[in-house]
């Protein structure tokens, strides 16, 4: 039953996932709360051509991915902050352009098409110590930033117009949140890939959001849920010989659907406990 967890590469995948659960549980709640789910997905997609470039030109892949994701997250975040209509359209356009550019670069410029699948869908069972270190560092940064800036992120999301009047005028905290979204997107790439990043960054937080009414319990619940989904996903992937990133994404999606359906079918019960 538990024999998959005795394999060294499975153990390393598990450590990576538990670190990412801390990252995703904490950051994911801010992403969901501040309506950054689509930008987070697109930032991960934007990291894809950055990874291909880094691979082809021979510099550190996370650096290339982070550069591209950061550029994108800041540009989109600024547009979203100004409430320009159509910024989601622009996000979608850049998302498609980034994927297309990555594919073309990989297949026709650098001839590294073999790695495209792992860049897009992750290669959790083949990660290296560098990936684990990146996940640990990103998780620490997100925890520290939440500790310091959480109150401001909350106030700015609660009512943006009054937040300005409250003296939360500096755009710095919100800009830092976008930087963290880019960092988070790059940190989860090796596990679930550019296209499935939201399976860790958004879906667990969106699931626990359905029954959370305070930020800190919500974040704790999300860390636990993401860790559980990841652990079960790795085990199932090894048992079924399925791709682990996609397995985790399917599990996360299924759990969300079940919880949402449960909420929809039992509105009276939730009202009674509210």
């Amino acid at each position, binding site marked *: 039953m538990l024999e998959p967890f005795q394999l060294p590469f499975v153990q390393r995948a598990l450590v990576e996932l538990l670190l990412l659960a801390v990252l995703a549980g904490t950051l994911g709640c801010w992403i969901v709360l501040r309506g950054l789910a689509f930008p987070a997905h697109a930032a991960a997609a934007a990291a894809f051509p950055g990874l291909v470039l880094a691979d082809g030109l021979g510099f550190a892949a996370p650096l290339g991915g982070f550069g591209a994701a950061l550029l994108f997250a800041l540009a989109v975040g600024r547009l979203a902050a100004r*409430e320009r209509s159509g910024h989601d359209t622009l996000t979608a356009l850049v998302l498609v352009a980034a994927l297309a550019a990555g594919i073309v670069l990989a297949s026709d410029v650098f001839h590294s098409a073999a790695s495209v699948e792992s860049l897009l869908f992750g290669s959790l069972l083949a990660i290296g110590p560098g990936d684990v270190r990146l996940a640990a560092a990103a998780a620490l940064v997100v925890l520290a930033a939440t500790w310091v800036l959480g109150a401001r992120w*909350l106030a700015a999301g609660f009512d943006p117009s*009054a937040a300005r009047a*409250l003296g*939360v005028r500096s755009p710095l*905290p919100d800009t830092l949140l976008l930087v963290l979204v880019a960092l988070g997107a790059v940190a989860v790439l090796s596990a679930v890939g550019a296209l499935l990043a939201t399976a860790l960054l958004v879906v667990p937080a969106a699931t626990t959001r359905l029954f959370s009414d305070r930020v800190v319990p919500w974040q704790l619940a999300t860390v636990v849920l993401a860790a559980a989904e990841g652990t079960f996903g790795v085990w199932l992937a090894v048992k079924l010989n399925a791709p682990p990133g996609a397995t985790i994404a399917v599990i996360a999606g299924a759990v969300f659907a079940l919880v949402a359906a449960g909420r929809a079918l039992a509105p009276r019960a939730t009202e009674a406990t509210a």
Partner: protein
Amino acid sequence: MTALLEAGGLAVGYGGPPVLTDVSFRLEPGERIAVLGPNGGGKTTLFRALLGELGPSTGTLSVSGRCASVPQTERSRLDFPVSALDVALMGTIPGRPWWRRPSRADRAAARAALARVDLADRAERTYGELSGGQRQRVLIARALVQDAGVLLLDEPFTGLDATSAARLEALLAELAGEGRGVLIATHDLEQARRWDRVLCVNGRQVAFGEPDEVLTPEALAATYGGAIVTLPPTHPDPTAPHRVILPPHHHHHGPAR
């Protein structure tokens, strides 16, 4: 006595031509000023200028002490995972450097402000589950935590039932009694009549003064573009004709200009 607010020939805008001009008024400690005007008439712009978000394009504006805004409760996210105490605590943010977390004193101040608006027993309740009047009072508590001498309320009575409205009005009277200044954007002329001063704006300042001087049919016509009707004297005071403004509230939720 020094005025809490004093504007002289103030004009404000958003970079282009000013959207509100000729604003000259004083707010003394203990006064409640009703700010009347159509939507888009410049009430929000005036508030943003008083909060220091917009600089005067011409004229002068002096603010002594701190202005705090009390927005409409629908502008805040009712599905947000925050308690009433969390919202009141947001008022402590301007008082501390960005790297500092709320201290025990901040929490005590937030609790005291909630007690001040009679919501001490609701501190741990989820904000979105409170009634409209309670939410409005939580936002007032948030302003009190900022130690604001001037409160700017944006149509605080919208959507409140009679009991909640009476309770809120009593609270505003108490706050004014403590020497604060209160500016209240409203559409209710009968309410404005009960307060100390009335400021009418419609792209420019139409009138400012005591309610009896200002609330004339001519000034109201200039303020609302003639969209005033006089209802038969039935409600709320059977002896007086009840003037109302048409069309009623259209709340625009985008960036108000």
